[in-house]
């Protein structure tokens, strides 16, 4: 095969996560002769996929039943779906020492078919998205799909005349820190493709560039949360006490307490990951207003909360990581204003990249997989007709129930953001009848206020990144850029005391000789919080050389 042929594929999928792989698997199943390439910037399958997720297994049946009806019996499926949710706790943490269950209210809501009745998870599975991805990747490879890891795409290439996307450009490799070519410099190739599927995950580099270039519109601002989590190895007794199959969601302390605050959106999570290992996570909406706040501060407080502490005290942290979640919901989906399609021309946008997260369930995994299924089906059905593919894809999102779910939860996040959880939560039962509150972009919400529960000891971010096993070739240009140094040194420092230094979960930013710098780009976890929370919108995240970044295994 010639070089040119090797740089060309019929369908190119950017991102080998659950959405991209589901699209590849679905298409290949329908069209075994289809030439499909999936590229991913991680070194290995699942390395950049973080979420201790709760999965509604139906989407896996839709995806895999026609390929192998006994898929559930396979060793890997058994491993991935090890824990079925048997005990579902929803707690309100009133303070460091007090908590009470609010599960009954969810049960009542469910009975009356109210929206937030969706916050019940019994019958779902607790899965590691990293393991799930690894398994789907293997399934895809076995079907003859080319899944190629270690390649990062930095741009979409368009036909100069008709503006149609013709392919993607990969990142140059072998540049030194100053951008000079080293002897092993390898120019990033252009991969040509007839159809491009963007499945990059939250705040995708190509996705955002495409949305702008193609003139796709989000009716409401995309909002984000960041999740930080740890896998903790606990004692036999602690694990027994916790019980396998138990999921704990906790609202309130340490990010929201009534009257005197703090008032942030989000909550804590506890779940089993494997024998004697428990996930402890904290998800916080990026619209926090405390300039000295770090998500890991909240995690520390959560871990020290009396209810939580007893399960993990004395344990060893064995893995850690951080990731953003797109929370804008239905109205933040990027659409072609003319057709309402999620994508344009020969480009489709999938999963977290589009923002298919149901905020009532705080879950997007099943929708990501369903969006992949929809994309796969659409391409198979509309061979050689890209324009029809986008409409078909958008239509199938309806058929598969993704849109209905998104619509039910459409205004939840905005309502809570506007009215706060105390009023916002109950009022959200009115669902779509509520007005769509206009909510500012996350980064605009920053003040000089301080976080009330700042822990006395600073969180050890070095160990955190080491446990995320993140690594980049050190001699490469920084993939993080500060647009205007003066803004950092003056305005930001005066007003907010350079919050990126504190909030970056990987401790990438540091003050050196009076200048804020992305001092440790090789610690970056690719969560992109900096790009969305810098109060002056002064940071840009681009993609580093392929193969770099975290190496999540179970987190």
């Amino acid at each position: 095969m010639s070089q040119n042929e090797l740089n060309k594929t019929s369908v190119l999928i950017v991102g080998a996560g659950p959405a991209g792989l589901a699209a590849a698997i679905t298409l290949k199943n329908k069209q075994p002769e289809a030439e499909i390439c999936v590229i991913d910037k991680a070194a290995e399958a699942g390395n950049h996929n973080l979420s201790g997720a709760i999965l509604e297994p139906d989407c896996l049946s839709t995806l895999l039943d026609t390929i192998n009806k006994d898929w559930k019996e396979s060793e890997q499926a058994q491993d991935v779906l090890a824990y079925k949710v048997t005990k579902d706790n929803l707690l309100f943490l009133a303070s460091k020492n007090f908590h009470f269950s609010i599960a009954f209210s969810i049960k009542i809501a469910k009975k009356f078919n109210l929206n937030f009745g969706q916050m019940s998870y019994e019958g779902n599975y607790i899965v590691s998205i990293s393991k799930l991805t690894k398994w789907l990747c293997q399934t895809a490879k076995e079907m003859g799909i080319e899944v190629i890891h270690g390649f990062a795409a930095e741009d979409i290439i368009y036909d100069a005349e008709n503006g149609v996307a013709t392919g993607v450009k990969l990142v140059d490799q072998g540049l030194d820190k100053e951008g000079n070519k080293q002897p092993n410099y390898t120019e990033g190739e252009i991969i040509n493709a007839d159809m491009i599927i963007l499945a990059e995950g939250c705040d995708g580099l190509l996705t955002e560039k495409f949305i702008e270039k193609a003139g796709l519109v989000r009716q409401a601002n995309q909002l984000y949360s960041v999740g930080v989590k740890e896998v903790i190895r606990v004692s036999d007794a602690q694990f027994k006490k916790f019980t396998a199959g138990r999921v704990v969601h906790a609202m309130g302390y340490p990010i929201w307490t009534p009257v005197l605050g703090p008032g942030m959106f989000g909550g804590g999570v506890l779940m089993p990951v494997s024998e004697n290992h428990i996930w402890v996570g904290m998800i916080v909406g990026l619209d926090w207003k405390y300039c000295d706040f770090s998500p890991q501060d909240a995690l520390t407080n959560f871990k020290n909360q009396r209810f939580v502490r007893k399960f993990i005290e004395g344990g060893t942290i064995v893995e850690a990581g951080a990731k953003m979640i797109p929370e804008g919901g239905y109205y933040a989906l990027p659409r072609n204003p003319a057709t309402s399609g999620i994508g344009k021309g020969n480009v489709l946008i999938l999963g977290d990249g589009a923002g298919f997260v149901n905020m009532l369930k705080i879950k997007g995994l099943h929708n990501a997989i369903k969006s992949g299924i929809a994309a796969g089906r659409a391409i198979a059905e509309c061979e050689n007709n890209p324009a029809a593919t986008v409409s078909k894809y958008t239509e199938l999102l309806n058929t598969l129930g993704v849109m209905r779910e998104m619509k039910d939860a459409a205004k939840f996040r905005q309502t809570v953001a506007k009215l706060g959880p105390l009023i916002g939560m109950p009022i959200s039962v009115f669902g779509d009848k509520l007005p769509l509150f206009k909510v500012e972009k996350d980064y605009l919400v920053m003040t000089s206020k301080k976080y009330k529960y700042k822990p006395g000891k600073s969180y050890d971010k070095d160990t955190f990144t080491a446990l995320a096993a993140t690594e980049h070739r050190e001699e490469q240009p920084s993939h993080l850029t500060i647009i205007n140094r003066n803004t950092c040194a003056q305005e930001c420092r005066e007003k907010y005391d350079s919050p990126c230094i504190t909030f970056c979960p990987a401790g990438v930013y540091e003050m050196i000789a009076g200048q804020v710098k992305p001092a440790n780009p090789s610690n970056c976890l690719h969560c992109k919080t900096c790009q969305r929370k810098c109060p002056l919108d002064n940071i840009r995240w681009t993609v580093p050389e392929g193969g770099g970044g975290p190496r999540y295994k179970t987190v």
Partner: protein
Amino acid sequence: MSNYIVLVKQVPDVSQITDNAFNPETGTLIRTRLASVINELDAQALAAANYMNQLCGERGKIVSLTMGPPMAAEVLRYSLARCADSAVLLTDRALGGADTCATANPLAFAIRKIVKDILGGSSDYFIVSGMQSVDGDTAQVPAQIAEELDVPCIAYVTDIKYDGERFEFSRIISGGNQWVASRSVPAVITVAKYEYPLFATFAGERGANRFELIQWGTDDIKAEYTGIEGSKTRVIRVFPPPGTTRKCKEITDARKIAGIIADCLDESQKKDEKAAGDGNGYVLPGARENIFDRSFEGTHKESEDYKILTGIIEKLGIKSLADITDDVKEKILSKAGEHFHKNALEDMLEGFKTTEPAYNGEVWVAVEHDGNKIHPATFELIGKARDLAGSLKTKVGAVVAGGKPEGFGQELISAGADTVYAVEHPMLETFDPKAYRKAISETIEKYWPQIVLFAATSMGRMLAPMIAYRLRCGLTADCTGLEIKDSSRKGQVGILMQTRPALGGNVMATICTKDSKSQMATARPGVMKRLEPDKKRKGEIIKNKVQLNQTDLSLDIIKTEKATGKINLDSDIVVSGGKGMQSRDNYEKLLSKLVTAIADKFDVSIERGASRAAVEQGFVERIHQVGQTGTSISPKIYIALGISGAIQHLIGVANSETIIAVNSDPAAPIFKHCDYYINGTVEDVVPELVEAIAGINKKD
């Protein structure tokens, strides 16, 4: 136009070892918890081969070869995605469990087949490999392949040039580097450093996935030595390395640190001397008071079992082996309970019959020198050899090859040798691996010592595997412990137990030689301790002859460069600066003051290091970077200035004897992983420290 056969190996990713990779109860490393990657130096070797191909102008073929389980195909795909034209996977159950000898042998046979099948019989090729693998860490296989194929071996290459006709290689030698050329091709090249590993291209990766690998098994290559059967060593036990416990003591007065540095160097000296000591008090079974005394077994379990057995035998009042009838055996078993069963008892009783040592002959040290001076490691080995020979009631021999080696005789005898075997030949004037290995191995063959020790220097690590392979003897590399012990149940007593770190120091392994006439090992310099030289010591110098001609030389030496101003992170003391140094000027100023002060006062080697952050900030060049991604070091004293102690840094300095930290952040993680710390800024502390060191009375 030359062709290239690149040896690549799949290894566990030891750079990613986290707490979860260890069994929490036993502390042993769980191999399956680690990802598999291409051995980093092999990736560099592949790039070096590609570079040679480019230098030469006309492109030859690059064929990558690996031996391993089927999943090792991944490293071949790695090669194909970058520059390899073809790839061969040598895989067969029968090849598993091999030591270096049983690895080099089938690889050499596979190379012969590659030359015939893929390179059309051309003899114009280079075998290129990384100098060593991170898991085995022995550096033996390439040299042994060279020995099997009888071709030159140029080890530890760091730079390559092409003069239009032939390649010139810069290789690391003790105390510097040397430009050499191979007098013939094919030749084996081992790469110690080639900075620019290749990146895969997307098209290359796709092509690699479609490439049909060539797969061979034992029947295809018909090798002589394979698998466990063909190995010359066996692993007795694997155990976690001893954990270090740090003192974590806060020092409030910077001046006290000066005294601590002096004390640490003193203690380190004493510890070394103790390590040299008189060994473990081993006595051959025939010379023990109690015929049932088996207290020198190689493994803890066997020692314990014998202790219980001996105890029971004594209680039963049994005096000789003949008294142990079947009835007595029943009694013993009933008393032994769960400790051992019938078969084990039979083995152990049988073991009592072995009283004669498994090997005979002297304990030898292969002498390393540069023509003028003997390498200090040689004296350390003689010290160890004395200890071993004492246990075995035999003599210490030193074998020295060279242009005029007799001159070294008395010095070696003073250091502890009883006999010096001098092999003299004008062609041994300078070190050529091929000529030297012939001279030394012929002498070994003449006398057959029971143990031969080599220094694990760049020279010794090349010579030892060639000699061991040539003489069909087992060899253990880089030993940190050498002891005479018994393996009574296997019918061997008085054998050499060789302990060495493996997997990047994450596990320790004790290894024994098998199916060999002599037990061979290399030992790391600085680990064993030399004896105080005794100028009055008497010994014998025996001259030996060797026949050499031009074909016994393998290398043309073009130029030797002594190291000047080279970075030596193997120094006794390493002083590192971190981000806390604030600026390049500060780093330069404070470190040079401190380094000069220490160097003036103490007779030690000292080097500057840096944390990754300091390098990132441009305070100092990357070559100084200490830590997991820089250089892992094990100095006597490590001084960390303004380094917070990221885990990656701490792993890289974990083997330091004493760690002293200065940091302004009271919560700096390094304070929990050091012996002494001062909470303060480097600008305040370092000048005080410098002053205090200058005030110490100079030691002689």
